[in-house]
């Protein structure tokens, strides 16, 4: 017997990762475009990332004889992990998911899988650049981890749940942010997006073969369709983290109690179904616009800063840590 909730979840499993996968490369180009505009250049087309991915997918993969299975498995595994992670962050509508899908800690650690294996594949080919990238990426990720966990703990404190789906349901139920402290957490979340997606001032995604690079150094030995998968994974990760921030701060348009209507529509009349589909399209469009705005902000933020020295970064992270710890303290003493 298939329940309504099952239909809603199966639909969600198809729609949410698919939608995220589809729109993610767009924001990569959008941010590049904004940065180019800020520097007075024309910049790439908005769809350039899609063309790049198509080009890479048709290129051959070159492996180093030094490399092992890690190099071969990592690109596939990472995209799979991020697609799984996309089930934890609803961007169109909130389904009735089975327990555990949506757990915020599982989400953090799914991102950790991606990082773990990317770092291993950086070491795999034995290139000094790869090792350097792995070392820096893992070190910085370790230092940002308390901030990330405290930020999410602050969310759990304010919203009284550890489930991202429930959190979004609570925030989308009210028009203004549930608690003013959420604005503080959002600052931390923004810094986390910057760090986790390797953007200025932490890492410079535009450089190759400079001593400043972190993420690009790790994937230096990747080529062809494997590189395409890794680039895609990276953009999906960026979209998911942006979605967390958007759905906490401005959840307008996210269909909260929509799943009931949707499944009712599927089993009921075509009128209801039409209504449901148009509602979904509306939510999707709303997210597209909101994420676009956030991408513009990220682009402007990147343009206004220069790369920080590696060992200055922990101080930058402390700022994010401060804002999320402050949230918890305010909740404790309120």
């Amino acid at each position, binding site marked *: 017997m298939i329940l309504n909730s099952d239909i809603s979840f199966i639909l969600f499993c198809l729609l949410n990762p698919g939608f995220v996968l589809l729109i993610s490369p767009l924001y990569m180009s959008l941010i590049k475009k904004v940065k180019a505009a800020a520097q007075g250049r024309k910049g790439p087309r908005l769809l350039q990332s899609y063309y790049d991915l198509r080009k890479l*997918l*048709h*290129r*051959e993969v*070159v*492996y*180093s004889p*030094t*490399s*092992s*299975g*890690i190099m071969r498995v990592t690109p*596939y*595994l990472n*995209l*799979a992990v991020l*697609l*799984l992670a996309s089930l934890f962050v609803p961007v169109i509508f909130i389904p009735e998911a*089975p*327990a*555990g*899908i949506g*757990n915020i*800690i599982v989400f953090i*650690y799914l991102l*950790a*899988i991606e*990082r*773990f294996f990317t*770092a*291993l594949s*950086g*070491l795999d080919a*034995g*290139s*000094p650049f790869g*090792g350097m990238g*792995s*070392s820096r990426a*893992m*070190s910085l*990720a*370790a*230092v940002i*981890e*308390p901030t*990330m*966990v*405290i930020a999410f*703990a602050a969310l*759990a*404190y304010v919203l009284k749940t*550890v489930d991202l789906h429930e959190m979004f349901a609570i925030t989308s139920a009210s028009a203004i942010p549930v608690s003013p402290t959420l604005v503080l957490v959002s600052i931390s979340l923004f810094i986390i997006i910057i760090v986790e997606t390797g953007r200025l001032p932490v890492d410079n995604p535009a450089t190759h073969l400079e001593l400043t690079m972190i993420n690009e150094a790790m994937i*230096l*030995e990747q080529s062809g369709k494997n590189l395409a998968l890794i680039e895609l994974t990276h953009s999906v990760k960026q979209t998911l983290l942006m979605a967390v921030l958007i759905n906490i701060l401005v959840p307008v348009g996210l269909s909260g109690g929509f799943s009931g209507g949707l499944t009712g529509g599927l089993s009921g009349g075509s009128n209801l179904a039409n209504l449901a589909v148009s509602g979904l399209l509306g939510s999707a469009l709303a997210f597209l616009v909101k994420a676009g705005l956030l991408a513009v902000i990220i682009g402007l933020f990147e343009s206004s800063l220069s790369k920080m020295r590696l*060992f200055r970064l922990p101080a930058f992270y402390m700022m994010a840590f401060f804002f999320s*710890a402050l949230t*918890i*303290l305010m909740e*404790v003493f309120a």
Partner: protein
Amino acid sequence: MSEPLLTGGLALLLLGTALSFLYRSKNCRTVSLGLTFLSSGLLSAFAAGMLYGGREVLIESYSFLSPLEFSFFIDRLSAGFVLLISLVTLGVSLYSIKYVEDEKSEGRKSLHVALMNLFIFSMLLVVLSANGFSFLFFWELMSISSLFLVIYEYEKPESGKAALFYFIMTSLSTVFLFSAFIGLYTRTGSFDFRGFGLLSPEALSWTFLSLFFGFAIKAGAVPFHKWLPYAHPASPSNISALMSGVMLKVAIYGLLRFLLAVEPELWWGVLVLAFGSFSALLGVVYALKENDIKRMLAYSSIENVGLILIGIGLYLIFRVSGLAGLAGLSLAAAGFHCLNHALFKSLLFMAAGSVVHETGTRNLEDLGGLVKHMPQTALLFLIGSVSIAALPPMNGFVSELMLFQAFFSSSALAGAEAPFLKVLLVLSLSAFALTSALAATLFVKVFGITFLAKPRTEGAERAREVPKLMLLGQAIPAALCILTGLFSARLFTLFGLPVGFGSGAEAEVPDMLFVGGILMVTYLLVWLSVRNFGPSSGPRVCKETWGCGGLAQHPSMEYSPAGFSEPLVVIFKKIYRTQLSSSRSFADSQDCVFEHGTAEIRLIKFFEEYLYLPVAQAVDRVSMKVAGLQNGRLDTYVLYVFLAVIALMGFTRWFA
């Protein structure tokens, strides 16, 4: 005794011990270890049955002086730890069959097996003991048998130092336990553990402190951790696997046995939590700096003991605050992490043992590229690394997830101390999060440097895969790491713990089987959809790693382990307390012409130099003073006797 599985298992173990004590041949050792394997199979079945059925068995037995009696008691807690011990032994016994044959002398090989069996036997009986006397008796047997195994390679100078450290620390631990149990006896008239519940609150606090320090020393909590990084590299790898995987947990068992029997107080929880957080963080931070693979694993054990103590601390805090659901969750997390750490740490120690055995070095700087020569060992080590780095859906992740959930739900705390506790928990949570992420970094380093890229030395180049039986011994804990992770929520429900998923569970744990299943499906989908892209014909292209214009890639260009941890060493330089010193001398008076100079970077062994050595020196000075009393002349001794008699008379006159 009416428990055939238990009696049979213990008897087989004793038989195995006796066999290898008495006969010195390869066949006897193989049979002996086979008996160990069989016995751990029986005992795991017994313990699983006990856990499932929830029965309790009390075995009163031999008593030779009225209060000093051996009696044994099995409830769910001890059954859980029997399960832990026997599951680890299952793998280690198979691994040891080939591993022990590496030694030259027949006698030492047999002694190794006999002591190992005795060690396992004593650990089992510690966990089964129902009173302080049998607990201490087998506790000492456990310490002594493991001490002999630590100085197994006694020719090496480092073994001597390790054994000395281990001996002193373990004796200190016993002193604390002795005082606690004697206190129990003087107050209740019996060594029975059930007497803990009868103690007055004040006596209980003293007993707690005494037991906590005793067990913390044995479990290797900071600052009593120093013996671990000495003892583990010195002992054979199968013994390291047992000591780190199991013996540390026996100490945790003792602590839990006491805490579950009494009404705790809030400050106990705060103390345990603080010790746990410090041990976890410092353990992993020191591990990152370490380039000796076994010493690194030892530091990582300190970290994991810290995580277990964090779980116990949370349990105490939530229990005192009246939050039974969260207390249950934290306790289950601590217990499950005990099992998980036992599994993946024994796996990692065995795999590291294979690496050391094949390459002849423990230094990460000399390893590399082993994935080509030892593919199965590499896979097993990877499984262990992924589990200990707490990546879903492995078992290590599930226990850390439960701890995180307990932390995240701490907003439920209420009462006068709640604000203080919440701030404390936030601090502890950040330490925990940092620890967890650093552990992932650590194992990227260890796996990446040891197994990936090119071999850095000839020793690493010559390495070959170890025999099948050794691989099988590691495959058991590896399979258990995956299975206990995937089926964690179901196991909790099966064994009747108040955590799990679905209705009826007081605290929800996400179903890892579901997460793992979806991961498999998405992996297949990605693979299927991308498979057909790219040029279809032509051979697979293989090109050398780009070497910045150099023609051939050389291992010396690879990132070194020291280089890998350098960013973190710089960030945490306050903790490492590196001492930079340099001296320069000049040939002229204006300090212009440089003559010669020295520069030194030294890592201060903080605890050793500021805590252990001063204490040791103080003890040494006192001993010298006492030694001065012994001058060997009869008249002096007569004087001492005379003074003693006077003192005694005075004592009886005034005080008694």
